[in-house]
């Protein structure tokens, strides 16, 4: 398991460097790149150099993959979660609900999401209008199917 944890630490450090060098790069894409590269190195190590059995190597790779997914979950949560926004706002001291709204306005959140959707190629923003691209329509359709599968309210 030590090799998996060392690989995770390497992926996190490489990712931290990459997002600082290429600031405009999507953070998830950046982690998929660094995490994938380190994962490949881990596969080579487990096959060529380690004295692990096949099962031990598979376990190390699975632990590494799970840890990477957990890290992606953690940093996407930090960047976009409403709950995390509340926590960080309150880290500066007690606030009323009105002050919380002022600190991190919902309108700004919508604008940020629109920009991110545009960067992901899901919408086109031009002259104050928003046009959903085919990719955006496919994504919306996929999530509609998921909503029905999970039984969420329409």
């Amino acid at each position, binding site marked *: 398991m030590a090799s998996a944890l060392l690989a995770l630490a390497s992926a996190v450090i490489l990712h931290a460097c990459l997002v600082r060098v290429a600031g405009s790069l999507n953070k998830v894409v950046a982690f998929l790149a660094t995490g994938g590269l380190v994962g490949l190195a881990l596969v080579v190590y487990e096959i060529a150099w380690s004295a692990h059995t096949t099962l031990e190597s598979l376990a190390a790779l699975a632990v590494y993959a799970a840890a990477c997914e957990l890290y992606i979950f953690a*940093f996407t949560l930090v960047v976009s979660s409403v709950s995390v926004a509340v926590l960080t706002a*309150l880290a500066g001291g007690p606030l009323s609900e009105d002050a919380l709204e002022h600190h991190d306005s919902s309108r700004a959140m919508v604008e940020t999401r629109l920009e991110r959707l545009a960067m992901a190629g899901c919408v086109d923003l031009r002259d104050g209008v928003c046009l959903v691209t085919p990719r955006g329509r496919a994504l919306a359709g996929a999530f509609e199917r998921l909503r029905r599968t*999970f039984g969420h309210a329409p």
Partner: protein
Amino acid sequence: MNSVLAIAAIYGVGHLLVYVSVLRRLPAFRRERVIFLYHAISFVGVAAALAVVLSLSVDRDVRPAAALVLAVHAMYSLTFLELWSLSEGGYSLAILRRAASRPGAVEVSSLLGLETVGLRKRSVRLQHLADLGLIERLGATWRLTSRGRAAAAAVKTVSWLVGAPRCG
């Protein structure tokens, strides 16, 4: 050792099938807390069962098998909970749904009306955070508990690592 992996695989498929065929139709399983507990209790239960097997077995392959099973369970549960949560709703999905429901282009100003989603989410989240013991009400204001301060410090560390100043 092979029997550990086989039993774990059957259990994992069963866990998903029970949800798909029965539980997703129950109103209780449309609540975030219940769906989280369905996975968290399963993970803890599997970990406890594997700990018992580890303590009783002399087979040296049981340990990596246990790690493999727990890692696969973690990936399955994380993926499931993320998809469940994403499809439940949020700004991005609400924007896409509203814009995609109309044939042509949509005025951005009409999408900005979706800020009410955030207001609703914020009031629900404040209560969730209070239920988790991370924040508490102090008169007309909210403040962090000691557990909340630890969580906020962890958030800052992750933010720093990914070079992200907190944003919405």
